[in-house]
């Protein structure tokens, strides 16, 4: 049977197939792109219909965005257990449940970090309204491009922008959002004129008397640094901190 999923995070597509999957005993073998397939054919739905508990849809939607290749297999296996064990959903400490929750949390966190760490640069563009566009490069770890789009549309509704990623792109022209295929880092614009002001701010708001590098890395993991221009100042700021702190004291 051909996979019904239209894209890697197609939860509605998966959820629509779930009753048939639960009725048969097929396993989910792979779930990448349109090639993914079911192992064997699903049986006719003879078993009674399964009513998913409240919260299942929300959990599934988030887990479906995860990069883990086994995400749909895990969801199917857990749905089978839920069908057999009516009290299972209430047991939030069940190991399978915790594993799914943890995948969902990793996705939530990546969405949050993408909202935070995308960096736009200004590009002249005669076709764009206002003669310029804001373009960003980002490398998300999970399939979250669709999930982050509404945030950026609400926030930057009035000027054209684009977010380029290796998993696909978003283009907003001030009216309409369109998707596009994967981009490469070289497609992203270089430093623009205004970036120096941001770097000055980042350097000046840092308090050298309170160095806490581990805390910074915990909240802003190193894997995002290549996409954020200010992070190239970090080694200099850390190196000069003792000297700057001394100067603050005995100016």
């Amino acid at each position, binding site marked *: 049977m051909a996979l019904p999923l239209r894209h890697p995070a197609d939860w509605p597509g998966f959820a629509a197939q779930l009753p048939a999957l639960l009725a048969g005993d097929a396993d989910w073998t792979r779930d990448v792109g349109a090639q993914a397939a079911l192992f064997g054919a699903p049986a006719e739905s003879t078993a009674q219909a399964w009513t998913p508990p409240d919260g299942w849809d929300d959990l599934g939607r988030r887990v479906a965005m995860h990069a883990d290749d086994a995400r749909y297999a895990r969801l199917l296996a857990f749905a089978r257990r839920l069908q057999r064990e009516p009290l299972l959903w209430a047991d939030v400490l069940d*190991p399978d449940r915790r594993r799914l929750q943890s995948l969902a949390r990793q996705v939530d966190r990546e969405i949050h970090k993408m909202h935070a760490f995308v960096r736009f640069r200004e590009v002249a563009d005669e076709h764009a309204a206002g003669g310029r566009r804001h373009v960003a490069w980002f490398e998300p770890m999970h399939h979250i491009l669709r999930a982050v789009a509404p945030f950026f549309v609400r926030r930057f509704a009035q000027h054209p922008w684009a977010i380029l990623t290796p998993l696909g792109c978003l283009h907003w022209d001030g009216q309409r959002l369109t998707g596009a295929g994967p981009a490469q880092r070289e497609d992203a614009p270089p430093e623009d004129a205004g970036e120096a002001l941001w770097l000055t701010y980042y350097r000046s708001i840092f308090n050298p008397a309170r160095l806490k590098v581990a805390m910074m890395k915990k909240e802003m993991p190193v894997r995002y640094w290549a996409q954020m221009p200010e992070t190239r100042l970090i080694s200099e700021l850390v190196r000069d901190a003792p000297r700057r702190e001394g100067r603050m004291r005995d100016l």
Partner: protein
Amino acid sequence: MEVQDKLAILADAAKYDASCASSGTEKRDSRDGKGLGSTSNGICHAYTPDGRCVSLLKILLTNWCVYDCLYCINRKSSDVRRARFAIDEVVQLTLSFYRRNVIEGLFLSSGIIRTPDYTMEQVIEVARRLREVEHFKGYIHLKTIPDASPELVERAGRYADRLSINVELPSAQSLKALAPEKNADGIERTMSRIHLRLQATKDAKREAMAVRALPGAAARAAKPPSFAPAGQSTQLIVGADASDDIAVLKLSSRLYTGQGLRRVYYSAYSPIPHASTQLPPQAAPLMREHRLYQADWLMRFYGFGADEIVTEAGFLSLHHDPKLAWALAHPASFPLDVDRAPREALLRVPGLGVGSVDKLLAARQSRRLRRADLLALGPAVKRALPFLVAVDHRPRAADVQLLARPAHQPQQVALF
């Protein structure tokens, strides 16, 4: 002077304000056809190597100041480099940073130039232009000058999401000694004026929400204009005077309940150039500041009172976090049975957060809890085990004693 140089001076001067919150305000976005921005639940766009987040463009309009508060780097008698932004420079910086997606909005404060009212007017004008000319929908936090007139505070609240007035020091006497131009009564008066105004807006909103049945009228009244929808906050310096932690936390508790503050920020005093002899020569330990934040958190979300949370003479323990210190000081309250203990009691167990407690409460509806369930909550729960009993878990007295030993110096202190 170039904007670049002003920014370097006026961001440097603003970094002593700890607040960077950008959450808890009304929902707004730019899909209405004009302007820029939206509000969020709080986003930290970057972190600097001091571990602090960058959420707002935090700057002073100017660091010129006619006041001479001894603890302040920008006091009149200090010889720091001075600068002053033009109003439009701040507006353009905010918009340009916002489009880059490096901030949620602006936190604007200022040294006092000419008079408090003149200064406040300048600060408000920045916010007004952002809102009315640029239709900026992002977050704005304005520092209120305590002696500014009530009309100006009213106007500030119309444009700002949050207002704040710093109480500066934990006691009125200290403030008198160290900040001769300020007075504690004036600060609290303005604070309670803002508090009353916030309450009035809340009441008006509730009234407007009520469905009515008047012939010829709309089903609901028009929404009243908003006033600082993210409320007010304050900051105080610890370690610049002799006030102990009990005094600080009692003050915070009073401000949370009496003045409805959203947040109290604590800033550990650190010596500044050419300091007065009235000030301590040593910086307050950053750990003290950290412990105050922990205690503050426990008061707001865990049901601890200001009068019980300090278990040593006047000060929070620097070795143990306040929750562990409280548990060690109250051995009779433990161990607790995870299958039966009430929520309020479980919240007092070191290592158990609100999320963990709620998970335990949900899971124990369906079955008895085991040691493995506790451990599954996360690594912090190891610290809870000596205080809990489960069907297959019974702590030994030695486990608690092991926790009581200050095992290692906390990392924060070791850095200095």
